[in-house]
């Protein structure tokens, strides 16, 4: 296994990449434009070679002809040629192959299944790290290895994403950075015939760049092994599982989609719970939960201070968090005594939730620091939630942009000194375009920004359930009292 991890590490952090079989408009080669290493092409079609060379890419007739060792091969040839390319890859001692080529077992045809068997045999025999087939392969943003030209390059991050769907791999890798979530690597694993989810999970479990792991999975081939590896890795890093094919109809779609078996959701739920992983059911839940895990302090105390604006939203934010299992307690008398000295109670209230608009708005913005001081000190409060309401608070930042840095500085001061988790909520409202820069500014300072009360409450709940159970399992890892 250590050997497989080393081989995967080479393939997933390549210095030399070769694209086999790219054609006009040379999508794969263009995807690699930001790549920090060396790119080669393998193409024998005389109609394609001039276009490749015009891009400044050296072309060779075969992988074995490339004058240096290739770490990662993108294979985009027709399926009949795929076994031949793998044989060359073995001979050239390449690190790994991302096989974009499709038309294998997922077609349900005999020829497809036969070709897949051949591909598997060659890859196994020669210890080739094979991603796919029928997949988008590797996205390594730090090194600029991409499978979509829209994917950002240059800066890596803490999240490893394993996806049984190529489209979800693209979608998450595009969407996550717009929410401040950077990926270490994403792998689209396709038919997963040589390497399956447990292999990638094990890899990300020991990958120093990866601090949290997200998985989109429809089914796995060796469930027992997946359960074992998940359990082991989830002890060290948060693992979020987005299971596709949860309904009977969805499960039918998985069979035609990736030729994998699907299992009843109750078992998956058990598996996820037992391993201490985190279940998410949508892409939104995946990203929301990651935000809290990555950008809030790791506490899991469920007594919240809710910083809100005006009456109705104060009521509704309280309902949302209370329904999600949180307590919104009263503060200590000392806190109330101090609040009484400056809180604007005309049209406001400070029992918790804090209807704070009149208190911290405009010329009184320094009162935000005083409010934070009280919440930081108050022993009844574990976690702080702030609604940066688009119509009340965010509006003043896009109307008076000079106030935004001051606001961010107050939030940063609180966050940096505190062990109490802090999350913000910013509803896009009817001012989506105006709100966006405020959201981006908050994200750039490393704050979790959730788009609604309800989604914030659900994400905080998931993250805290995870934190709490991992703390409990640390305590329980001591042997139980024998009877």
């Amino acid at each position, binding site marked *: 296994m250590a050997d497989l991890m080393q081989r995967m590490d080479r393939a997933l952090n390549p210095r030399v990449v070769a694209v086999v079989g790219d054609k006009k408009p040379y999508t794969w080669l263009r995807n690699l434009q930001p790549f920090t290493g060396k790119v080669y092409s393998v193409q024998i079609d005389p109609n394609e070679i001039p276009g490749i060379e015009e891009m400044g890419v050296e072309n060779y007739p075969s992988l074995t002809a490339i004058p240096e060792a290739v770490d990662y091969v993108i294979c985009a040839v027709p399926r009949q040629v795929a076994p031949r390319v793998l044989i060359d890859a073995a001979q050239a001692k390449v690190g790994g192959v991302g096989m974009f080529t499709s038309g294998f077992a997922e077609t349900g045809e005999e020829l497809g299944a036969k070709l897949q068997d051949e591909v598997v045999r060659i890859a196994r025999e020669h210890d080739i790290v094979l991603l796919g087939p029928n997949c988008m392969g590797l996205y390594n943003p730090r090194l600029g290895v991409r499978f979509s030209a829209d994917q950002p390059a240059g800066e890596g991050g803490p999240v490893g994403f394993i996806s049984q769907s190529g489209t979800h791999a693209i979608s998450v890798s595009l969407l996550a950075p717009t929410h401040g979530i950077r990926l270490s690597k994403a792998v689209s694993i396709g038919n997963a015939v040589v390497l399956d989810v447990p292999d990638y999970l094990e890899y990300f479990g020991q990958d120093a760049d990866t601090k949290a792991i997200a998985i989109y999975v429809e089914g796995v081939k060796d*469930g027992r092994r997946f*359960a074992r590896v998940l359990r082991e890795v989830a002890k060290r890093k948060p693992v979020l599982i987005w299971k596709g094919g949860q309904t009977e109809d969805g499960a039918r779609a998985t069979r035609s989609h990736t030729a994998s078996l699907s*299992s009843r959701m109750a078992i998956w739920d*058990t598996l996820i719970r*037992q391993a201490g992983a985190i279940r998410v059911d949508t892409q939104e839940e995946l990203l929301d939960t990651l935000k809290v895990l990555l950008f809030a302090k790791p506490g899991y105390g469920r007594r919240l201070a809710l910083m809100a604006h005006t009456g109705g939203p104060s009521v509704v934010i309280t309902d949302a968090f209370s329904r999600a299992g949180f307590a919104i307690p009263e503060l200590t008398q000392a806190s109330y005594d101090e609040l009484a000295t400056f809180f604007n109670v005309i049209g406001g209230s400070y029992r918790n939730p804090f209807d704070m608009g009149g208190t911290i708005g405009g010329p009184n913005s320094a009162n935000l620091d005083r409010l934070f001081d009280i919440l930081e000190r108050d022993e009844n409060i574990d976690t702080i939630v702030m609604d940066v309401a688009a119509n009340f608070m965010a509006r003043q930042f896009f109307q008076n942009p000079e106030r935004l840095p001051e606001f961010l500085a107050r939030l940063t001061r609180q966050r940096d000194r505190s062990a109490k988790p802090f999350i913000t909520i910013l509803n896009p409202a009817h001012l989506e375009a105006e709100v966006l820069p405020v959201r981006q500014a908050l994200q750039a300072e490393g704050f979790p920004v959730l788009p609604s009360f309800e989604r914030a409450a659900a994400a905080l709940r998931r993250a805290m359930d995870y934190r709490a159970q991992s703390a409990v399992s640390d305590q329980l890892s001591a042997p*139980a*009292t024998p009877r």
Partner: protein
Amino acid sequence: MASNVIERARGEGRVLLNEVESKELLEEAGIATSGAKLARTADEAIALAAALGYPVVLKILSADIAHKSDVGGVALGLADGEAVRRGFDGMLRAVRAAQPDARIDGVSVQRQAAAGVEVIIGMTKDPQFGPVLMFGLGGVLVEVLRDVAFRLVPLEPKDARELVREIKGFPILQGYRGAPPADLAALEALILKLSAFIEAHPEIDELDLNPVFAYPDSAIAVDARVIVSPAS
């Protein structure tokens, strides 16, 4: 040895172990049961009952009968030899009348267990994830409300702890309305032994301990059924 019971059943072309065999296997795995001895005649049953101590329970032993009480195959609270004889003869008559084609191995005799909180602990195999252990409260709660929780085998101590606490009916085990609380540690220990037993016997396909009686100071399997895979 455990394998003897399984090999014998397989040798006879059976996959279903009867209550006596199932409990024998469980006892060998360190799981407390209410015991069960095979009687082929009323005289054997009376002798066994005298040795075990009254009151006793008789149950029909037949691989062809899934729900024993539905066919008159259970007699509870038999207090003396005369009651055992009447129970034995009556049971065979009732079962033969209800299910004439059922093959009958005999009757199991066991000392009647004191009433406890009834729970069910079972195992089925998932095609992808292998053995899955199920826990729930017995009787109507499992059948109607499906108030059960699952864990994949093997279970760690933490899993057993969480499993018994996950069902909605957990307060009943904690001692509802003045009833004494069940011995949760004993239930957890039983579950962990069962998990180890299942791990050690991949040939076991399905298993039901139904009911297990949870007492304030112990837990015992009162009925058991083990299904093994056919001999290869």
